[in-house]
């Protein structure tokens, strides 16, 4: 079984300040982990993914995430928020390939960027 917990349902930051979105996962095997972003009226877009290679993963738009097995965490960060980062972000864990790569989503974190 696998699950994902996003610790903050809403995060508000000022433009130009750092962003931190927290995610903890539970999995009975070595997971693949993802962050997806959903802008209003747009499809889910992959930001970055961890698949057992480097623990620090860089994604699009300046985002990065660090896989910490000891803490079962996969927090998403960005050094300087931009207005266009306002969206909903989902932390996601993937099932075993034998199980069809089903994705299990967290509840989402809505990011508000203030000018």
């Amino acid at each position, binding site marked *: 079984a696998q699950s994902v917990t996003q610790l903050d349902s809403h995060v508000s930051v000022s433009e130009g300040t750092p962003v931190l979105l927290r995610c903890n996962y539970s999995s009975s095997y070595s997971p693949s982990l993802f962050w997806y972003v959903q802008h209003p009226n747009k499809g889910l877009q992959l930001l970055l993914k961890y698949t057992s290679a480097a623990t620090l993963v860089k994604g699009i738009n300046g985002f990065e995430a660090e896989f910490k097995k000891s803490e079962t965490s996969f927090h998403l960060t960005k050094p300087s928020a931009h207005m266009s980062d306002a969206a909903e972000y989902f932390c996601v864990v*993937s099932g075993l390939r034998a199980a*069809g790569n089903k994705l299990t989503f967290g509840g989402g974190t809505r990011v508000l960027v203030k000018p």
Partner: protein
Amino acid sequence: GAGVSQTPSNKVTEKGKYVELRCDPISGHTALYWYRQSLGQGPEFLIYFQGTGAADDSGLPNDRFFAVRPEGSVSTLKIQRTERGDSAVYLCASSEQVTANTGELFFGEGSRLTVL
């Protein structure tokens, strides 16, 4: 097309009616997934196809929900006797052959279903 296409983008229906939602995946993608996203929540898995067959339908909430993919490409999600609780955004996603990828899915923009 270049991405996953879903139609209709919006559907309003009355309680008790039948609804079909269509998904056209990325060309060449053999795996196709349906998810449901209720307001304020993350997407929840419904069913996935590998080719023409439903490999896992464990997420379908009850027997009013059914999905098909007869030719291994386009898929249709069918909901009978709709209830107000079925109101949600239904997301479709596709990916390359399951055993060849690391779980990255490509999502459509969704079909928003409202049951009055």
